[in-house]
C-alpha cells in the first residue's frame, strides 16, 4: 500500500523534535480527524537554517512531515512557500489516494510556520484557516 520511500521515512523519520529557540512555529490539522502536524523553524536572513516536526497521525502523515522538512531545510522562505503537496508526494514515490490529504497537511504546516514567522516580523498575514476532516 505504501511505497518503499514512504516506509523508509516512516521507519526513520528525519528532523523529528522541537527547536527550543524557534522563531517560526505552525500547527495544522486536529485530533478529531486523526492527524496534527506541528513544524518548528529557525529562520535567519530569510533562510530556513533548521526545521523540526512533531506529528500525531498515520504512517503517511509521519512520512510526509519528514520529507517536507527535508525539502525546505536550507531553502529561503520564498522557496519553501513554493513547496506543493504534489512535490512532496512525488518525492515519496506517490501516496495512496486516501492519504493525499497528509501531503496537503505537510504543505500547509510549512506555510503555517512561515506565516507565524512573518507575523512575528510585523507582516500582515491572514490567520490560518479552521480545519475540517478531509480525506
Amino acid at each position, binding site marked *: 500500500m505504501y511505497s518503499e520511500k514512504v516506509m523508509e521515512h516512516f521507519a526513520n*523519520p528525519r528532523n523529528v523534535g522541537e527547536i527550543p529557540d524557534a522563531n517560526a512555529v505552525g500547527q495544522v490539522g486536529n485530533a478529531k480527524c*486523526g492527524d496534527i502536524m*506541528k513544524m518548528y523553524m529557525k529562520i535567519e536572513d530569510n533562510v530556513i537554517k533548521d526545521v523540526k516536526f512533531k506529528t500525531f497521525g*498515520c504512517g503517511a502523515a*509521519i512520512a510526509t512531515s519528514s520529507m517536507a522538512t527535508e525539502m525546505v531545510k536550507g531553502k529561503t522562505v520564498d522557496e519553501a512557500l513554493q513547496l506543493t503537496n504534489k512535490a512532496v508526494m512525488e518525492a515519496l514515490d506517490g501516496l495512496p489516494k*486516501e492519504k493525499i490529504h497528509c501531503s496537503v497537511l505537510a504543505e500547509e504546516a510549512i506555510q503555517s510556520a512561515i506565516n507565524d514567522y512573518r507575523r512575528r516580523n510585523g507582516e500582515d498575514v491572514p490567520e490560518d484557516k479552521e480545519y475540517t476532516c478531509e*480525506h
Partner: protein
Amino acid sequence: MDNNATTSLKKEVLDAMLPYYTDIYGNASSKFYKVGRDAEQALYKMRESVAKSINAPNVNEIYFTGSGCEADNWAVKGAAMANRKKGNHIITTKIEHHAILNTCEYLERHGFEVTYLDVDEYGFVTPEQVEAAIKDTTILITIMTANNEIGTIEPIKEIAEVAKKHKVIFHTDAVQAIGHMKIDVKELGVDMLSLSAHKFHGPKGVGMLYIRNGVRIDNLIHGGGQERGKRAATENLAGIAGLAKALEIAVADLDKNVAHCKKMRDRLIKGIRDNIPYCRLNGPEDEGRMCNNANFSFQYVEGESILMMLDMNGIAASSGSACASGSLDPSHVLMAIGLPHEIAHGSLRLSVGEDTTEEDVDYVVSVLPSIIQRLRDMSPLYEGVE
C-alpha cells in the same frame, strides 16, 4: 495477534476437504450416477455434523452460504422481505458488523424502519432496551452474539426470550463467537444464527445460516433446488467439508481453547497495563468479554502508525482508527461506547488464538511499550504530558 480477523487452516481440516477436490468431485444434484450420489451423501453427513455441533434440532435447518457476510445479509433481507406484510420495523444495535448495519441501511432505503440501539460504555445492550423498542410493526431483531472489535458478549438468551414473547424473529450474528464460547441454538433460543468457517480454523469462502423450521424467510439465490431451493448454486462441497470439520474440532476442543485463550489474553492485558501509561481497555473486563480479544486505546498516538511499527516487528494486529479503516471516522463500535475521536484513533485490537504462546504474548509486551513511546515522543499532543 489478529485471530479476530482470520485464523490459519488446520491440517485436519484441509485433509477433510481434499477428497472433494479429487475423488468425490461429483455434483450433489446429479443423483443418477455414483460420484454424484457420493457427493450428495457426503453433503448430508456434513449438514448432520454441523447441526450436531450447534445442537440444531433438525438437519434441514442448516443452510450453507458463501460467507458469514452472506448469511447475515440473507437473514436480515430475507426475513424483512418475507414478513413485510406484518410490519416494517427492525431492531439492531449500533455495534453490529457492517454486514448487518449496511444491510439495515439498504432496507431503510426500501421503506423499512430500523432502530439502532445504543450500547453502554462496555458495549452491552440489555433485554429491557430491546423490549422497549418493540412495536406492533417489529418483524425482526438482529443482535450479534459477540462483538468483533471489543469482544463484548451480548445477553443473547435473554434477548431471545423477549423476542419469543413478542413473536418477533430473532437473528444473531455469531461469526466472532463460534469457537470461543458455547453455541447451542436450542439453548440460546434463537431463530437464526450466522457463522463463518475461516474464523475457527476452517477455509475462507464458506459460511452457514441456521434457520429454525417455521421461520418465514425469502429465498436468497434463485435457481436450482440446492439448500431446499432457498440458496441455489452447486454446493461448495470441499468448503462445506472444511466448515463441518473445523466446527467439530472447535466444539470438541472448546473448553481447552477457551481456557488457553483466556490465559493468553489476560497475560497480554496485564502486560500492557503494567508497562504502558495512558492506555485504556475498550470493552468489558473479564466476564462478558470474549476469551481471545483485547482492545486498547493509547492516548496521544494514532492506530495505523502503531500497526505499521508492529508489522516491522513481525506482529500482525488491527486498529479502529479512521486511517486504518480508510474512512473519515474511527470505528463505529468505539464511537458507540462513547470514546472521543482522538482516543478512538489510537485504538489497537490484539486477538489471540489457540496457537498463541506465552512467548508470543511476552514478545508483544516487550516491543509495544517502546513503539508507543516512540510515537508519543513524535506526537505534538504528548508535549507537556511527560
